[in-house]
């Protein structure tokens, strides 16, 4: 669960300071870490045998994640402070570790459990990492970084449909409650990272 007060604190900080290079860099570091993990997973999963029509959705998702990461890299006014990258690495470490475990040999292509976990973690990321609520009402809606964040969040909702459909249709041999529990674990992991990130974002 994300504490709504953390959104408010982060938004207040941005309203006061503006989208400074430091704030933009923090946001992009988080989103890029999450999206690179999902991208890497989908780029691999597309070769899973017997995907059929799903293959196109998997390929589309990795392409869209690549677009998002590229868009962010181009629109962000980067800070030159290396300490930001170090702190971001610590905050996103649970996500990076989880994606690394999923990608361990033989990888999701030949490991259905890893494939399920990757879809579940991707769902949690796309559903729970939401930055629209930190954009202050006084922000310029045509600011390139604001436009990028808005478009990325809208696209996240569309991409999420792939995970929603797959989670409903695969692994039916596993009881529903067990599958829900696996997905909830990933949500808790993502919520933990995102809560810490929002605290960091709100900090002066």
């Amino acid at each position, binding site marked *: *669960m*994300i504490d*709504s007060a953390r*959104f408010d604190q982060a938004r207040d900080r941005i309203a006061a300071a503006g989208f400074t290079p430091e704030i933009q860099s923090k946001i992009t570091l988080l989103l890029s870490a999450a999206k690179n993990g999902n991208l890497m997973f989908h780029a691999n999963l597309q070769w899973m045998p017997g995907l059929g029509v799903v293959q196109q959705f998997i390929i589309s998702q990795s392409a869209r994640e690549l677009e998002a990461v590229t868009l962010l890299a181009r629109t962000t006014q980067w800070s030159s402070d290396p300490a930001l990258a170090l702190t971001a690495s610590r905050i996103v470490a649970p996500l990076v570790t989880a994606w690394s475990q999923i990608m361990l040999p033989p990888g999701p292509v030949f490991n259905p459990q890893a494939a399920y976990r990757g879809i579940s973690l991707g*769902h949690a990321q796309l*559903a*729970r990492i*939401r930055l*629209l*609520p930190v954009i202050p*009402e006084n922000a310029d809606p045509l600011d390139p970084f604001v436009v990028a964040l808005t478009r990325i*969040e*809208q696209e996240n*909702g*569309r991409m*999420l*449909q792939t995970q*929603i459909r797959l*989670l*409903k249709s695969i692994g039916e041999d596993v009881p*529903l*409650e067990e*599958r*829900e*529990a696996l*997905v*909830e674990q990933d*949500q808790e992991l993502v919520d933990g990272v995102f809560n810490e990130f929002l605290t960091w974002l709100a900090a002066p």
Partner: protein
Amino acid sequence: MPTTQYGHHQVHYELTGEAGRPVITFLNGLTQNANLWTSYADYFVPRGYRVLAYDMLGQGRSSKPVIDIPLAAHADMLDQLLTELAIDRTHLASISFGGIIALDFAIRYGRRLHSLVAMSTFAELTPQLEFLGAVMTQGLTDVGLPYLQSMLYPMNMSSQWIAANRERIPAMKRAGYIGNDGYAMQNLMESFVKFKPLTPELHKIKVPTLIMNGEFDFFTPRECHELIRKEVTNSRLLIIQRAYHAFTLEMPAVTMRQIEIFLEQVSSGSWKGDQSVWIAADDPAAAEQWLPCAGDWRRAVQIATPVKTRATAASKTTTRKKKS
């Protein structure tokens, strides 16, 4: 907010008022949560009731199942929640999506009810509702949760309310966006794919039932409530003047007063479930609260019986002469 378990899921609830008093349980609609009933608890607890409100699965701080949540699970969960809280029977008041759950509960668990209040709801998907539901789901999946939220304000509230709250709406939308999850909304909406109309089962509802419908509710219009009124023999239909879909939020004082009157009638034994149609007074302090409905309540316009006047009779004679 206390929590209970339903299977693997957590359910957050709020129970206020002294133990042993009659309980009113409130069920909210889509994108809402238990907090929206706080003012109702503030009203009914000093009047001798206990109030139970909870976040339904998929909403608020309760678990939001990702894979599936059958519609029937909500009524089953309410049954379990009442058992855990040692509430044998309750009055059940509900709106919109919560109304369907309440109807389902009244059909299958009617023994646990003193009475039922069904507001802005439906027992089956009329073709209009089916198409509206489809376009809402499409908006949610193709454009996103903020789009659905933007769509719901004009669908649920009056121009007057929107004009008065225009400045607050962005913050309200943001709070709704943080508190809700698009996938969970989608799950709740998609649970209607397997939804079987409740209409053929409505005759099983035997408890006193007050059906409340906003005069201008075009989301769940009169025909939806008329279906319920016709099938539930122990019912009355009460039309809330100038109200839209979400009148529990827009006109809480009027709504609370009407529920209070109904509950008093049920408790005192003066309730008469005769499937009649009434109109709620605009003023909660008015001496007479339920006004008789003259005319056809299913129509938006009332046609007066034509009166023969000399002028019309003369024009008819002239027309006849011209024809001859």
